[in-house]
């Protein structure tokens, strides 16, 4: 149990996917303009990551033992198609939820954060439960980064910012400062 909590906190704060592994930067810079959209994208991310963790575990246990060179190809195909299936199921079962998350699902299906999660949890040799907790933490971390970023960006809209730094340059520098703040969490890890 102790171990699971550490996996969660480590993925959420210390090894935050967006701010310290640079995974999922494209949606992080692209969709973080508004707080509400950012939150929804984050939730969709958690959702896809949970599916990914389950798929990665299944592939690792039953398929990749026999054909390790298929790792990348099988991860991508299986993750993309299972997300598609779940998307169809949600559309049928809960149109409300689909309306809230639907447009983001294809956007993040083969995002680097998703594939990164599958690869990292394989490399670390996580079991099923550990993998799920890791996915929850990583998804939560991405959501946290998105929300923080969107909050700051909403504020910067009201400010008088020189022309040259507008756009991606400003966002990257904000991200750098956020990432520096998150480095402080590394102290939490000294006991582990």
């Amino acid at each position, binding site marked *: 149990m102790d171990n699971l909590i550490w996996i969660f906190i480590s993925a959420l704060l210390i090894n935050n996917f967006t701010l310290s592994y640079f995974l999922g930067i494209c949606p992080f810079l692209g969709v973080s303009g508004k707080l509400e959209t950012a939150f929804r994208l984050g939730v969709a991310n958690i959702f896809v990551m949970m599916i990914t963790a389950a798929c990665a575990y299944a592939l690792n246990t039953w398929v990749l033992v026999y054909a390790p060179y298929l790792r990348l190809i099988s991860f991508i195909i299986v993750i993309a198609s299972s997300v598609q299936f779940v998307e169809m199921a949600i559309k049928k079962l809960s149109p409300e939820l689909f309306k809230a998350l639907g447009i983001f699902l294809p956007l993040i299906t083969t995002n680097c954060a998703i594939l990164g999660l599958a690869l990292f949890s394989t*490399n670390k040799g996580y079991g099923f439960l550990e993998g799920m907790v890791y996915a929850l933490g990583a998804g939560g971390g991405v959501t946290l980064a998105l929300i923080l970023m969107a909050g700051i960006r909403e504020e910067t809209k009201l400010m008088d910012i020189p022309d040259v730094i507008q756009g991606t*340059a400003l966002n990257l520098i904000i991200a750098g400062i956020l990432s520096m703040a998150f480095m402080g969490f590394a102290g939490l890890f000294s006991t582990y």
Partner: protein
Amino acid sequence: MENQNPNAEEFLKGLWKENPVFVAVLGMCPALAVSNTAINSLAMGLATSFVLLCSSILVASLKSIIPKQVRITTYIIIIATFVTVVDFALAAFSPAIHKELGAFIALIVVNCLILGRQEAFASKHSVGLSILDALGMGIGFTFAMLCIGIPREILGSGSIFNISLFGSNFEPWVVMILPPGGFFMLGFLLLGFNWFTKKKKARINYG
């Protein structure tokens, strides 16, 4: 630029005018994640260029038989195949660099730069032009990686390609080789790029 040879134009546009990192802002994840030393940047740039070149050749030559509905899936499978080749080749020839780059070699698959070139260029043009485009974009990407990696290594460890520059008195800016350094370096480079473009435009306007 109208009187220039169109083939040269396809090659040159990737280097500066449509540079994948500075102008199109594609392929950011590897550009930030593994650019902490010059050697890693170079390895990542070359690996990405190789995958881009091979997949462009294959997509351009198969474009008439790939069904339109599943084209993206097909591109991804082609890219994933070449990334697996690079991954295994690097692990065999240079295990040290392979270990440094870790999972980021595998993550070349989801580099939007590569998929973007297949969809936007290789699937519509001949093999020859696609090779030129892929080479230009690959070199442009490698150039951008080095632009980020070299200053980060100089400031962060006081060396370049592992050769010490300043002697033992230099106090390294450790933050530059840590994750925030990547964000800062690319942010400031883009700032410089914007500034340069603006100045050039102003100069043209005032003639």
